[in-house]
């Protein structure tokens, strides 16, 4: 029983991390129908932003969230304006966009090697290894923080998407861009903003994972792959679906250790990814908030 609680709590914490990583990928896909293959690269950049702020300027990683959000947002808008917007017509969301953004990831990675070398880095704060006791289990404070932020993000996103004009416009663009133009919504601008938001979310995910893991310029692949699994499971572009899918993936991976060797637990996620794509392409929950 105690073991069960331990595993369940680990799964919840892991879900927080997975969800945080996946929101950015999901929202960009939901609105633009573009799979941001540079997602892993942005997560890596987010980690370095946090690291630079912490190491060089002494800014606490949690306090640097707004800075990382702003910087990643600008990066995302630039990515949209300079790259994604110029994709040959009809190819948006197709393999061309995958390759384009993969190319950008390579550039980001190379940039990071030049700027920061290939050394493993991590952000160490007073909380890095501290823990609190919940239900008899010790839980890492940094992981709880990630879970908290991972839970606040969907609420914030939900409020933003449902309660503001801009948010509603974003959802409307996801569902029918032409109608949006008719009522005066500048669809291109909305695309840029959405790409920015998705990138900002990825940046925050990078910052937060930097408080948990060591990272280097090559990091990001496993984050991207996990995000894929979560986003596909949750129904591409659904915010609550993403959260729920993160939980499912985490539970499956964590509890898989009871029957599978630890090494194979992450294969379970990939198998789920393929099965869901083939059997339920709309995601496990079908319902899409964005479109």
């Amino acid at each position, binding site marked *: 029983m105690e073991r069960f609680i331990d595993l369940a709590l680990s799964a919840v914490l892991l879900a927080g991390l997975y969800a945080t990583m996946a929101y950015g990928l999901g929202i960009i896909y939901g609105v633009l129908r573009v799979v941001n293959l540079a997602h892993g690269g942005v997560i890596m950049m987010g980690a370095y932003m946090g690291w630079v702020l912490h190491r060089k300027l002494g800014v606490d990683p949690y306090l640097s969230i707004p800075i990382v959000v702003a910087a990643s947002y600008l990066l995302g808008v630039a990515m949209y304006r300079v790259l994604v917007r110029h994709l040959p017509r009809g190819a948006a969301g197709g393999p061309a966009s995958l390759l384009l953004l993969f190319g950008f990831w390579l550039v980001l990675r190379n940039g990071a090697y030049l700027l920061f070398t290939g050394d*493993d880095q991590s952000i160490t704060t007073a909380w890095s290894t501290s823990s609190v006791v919940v239900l008899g289990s010790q839980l890492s404070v940094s992981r709880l923080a990630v879970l908290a932020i991972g839970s606040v993000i969907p609420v914030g996103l939900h409020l933003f998407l449902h309660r503001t004009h801009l948010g509603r416009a974003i959802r409307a663009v996801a569902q029918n861009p032409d109608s949006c133009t008719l009522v005066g919504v500048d669809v291109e601008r909305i695309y840029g903003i959405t790409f920015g938001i998705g990138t900002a979310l990825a940046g925050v995910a990078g910052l937060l994972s930097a408080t948990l893991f060591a990272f280097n310029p090559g990091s990001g692949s496993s984050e991207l792959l996990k995000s894929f699994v979560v986003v596909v499971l949750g129904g591409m572009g659904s915010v609550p679906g993403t959260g729920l899918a993160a939980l499912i993936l985490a539970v499956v991976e964590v509890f898989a250790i009871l029957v599978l060797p*630890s090494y194979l637990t992450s294969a379970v996620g990939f198998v789920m990814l393929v099965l869901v794509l083939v059997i339920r392409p709309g995601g496990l929950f079908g319902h899409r908030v964005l479109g």
Partner: protein
Amino acid sequence: MNIARPSFLKALLAALALLAVGLPAQAAPPKARVSVGATLPLTGSEARIGGFVKEGYELAFEEVNKAGGLQVGNQKLPVALTLLDDATNQATAVSLADKLINSDKVDFLLGTYSSHLIEAQSTVAEQYKVPYLQGGGGATKIFKRGFKYLFGTISPVELLGTTLMTWIDQQQKAGKLPKPAKIALLWENTAHGKDFRKGVSDFVAQNKGAYIISVDESFALDGKDFSALLGKVKAAKVDLFLADAHLPDYITMHRQYVASGLCHKVVSYGARGSEKGAIDALGVENVKYILSGVWWSSQLAAKPGPSRDFVTAFKARYGGRDPEWFQALAYLSAKTLFAAIQQAGTVDREAVRQKLATMKVKSLLPGGPLEFPAALGQQAQNPFVVQQNTPDGKSPIIFPQDVATGTGVAANPKCPN
């Protein structure tokens, strides 16, 4: 028309012709120097350590050239190092070794870093009968192929497991650890991790009744989340926590370890436990009493000898920084090659190979002289040095006794019993 026209074939032919003409076979230059080639992961996932190895190699080459070169027979020849970047990629490492041997015409090869790159690359050296000295891949598997031109200055990783267990065994016999002691054995699913596991499990098998391996699990390199695995360890209620992990996994895993309130009588993460990067990332408080076994430590410079000479030279060259075992083994490999050349009195590859296979030299490694026993695939068998982190942020050598600079503490006093 959608398909290609003759023009493309022309272009292709031109390109291939260029390739053929642009990279023609070069005539061997007159022997004015000893040319040594190596590739290193200067970019990619092992870039950091690739850089360390480079420092070791370069120091060795500079020293020799400063002294006027190698005495080869009756002439003094300078040594030249051709260093290429293999980007931590096997195919590239192989292909560049091809280039070094066949295009750049190097006389000898020094190894790259990390077991899988070396296992792939050393086949080229073997093929063209070029002596290949390496201090970057300790997996025994590399040396079990019966290669004649491959020499390892790096002891088998199995010995790391064995050495750690030997110290633990002493503590158990001294009554400081329970008997039987339950072990959680976590190993990275790489050649390195597998050897570590073998070292520990062989030791356990030979000491029946003293140890029980309760958890035996591998994990993926760059695993990120170890909570389920650590949950399993927790549930197993073990006494000894023996893991083998690379630096990033060590940092990630140990953060989760500490946060989830785990504490064991003995904790080790293999080779990386005392690395400065890890101590910075984890905090002195959280790494105290962690054991690590390394091939070489700068503390070996406490006594006069090759280690002290090396550390002095290294600090002078690299701004007072302490070298780690990466630099030391790289330096050692280069120096050993030079010694073999000088002793052979020629740059003839076959003669140097034979000299390497038979020579015994005093080296900066602990234990006896360095030699490459043929029975063990020409891999050095020097013992590891076991270090333990202390509460004041130091990591003295606690084993073997003859080089120890401190005393080990068993049954981690941090843990509530």
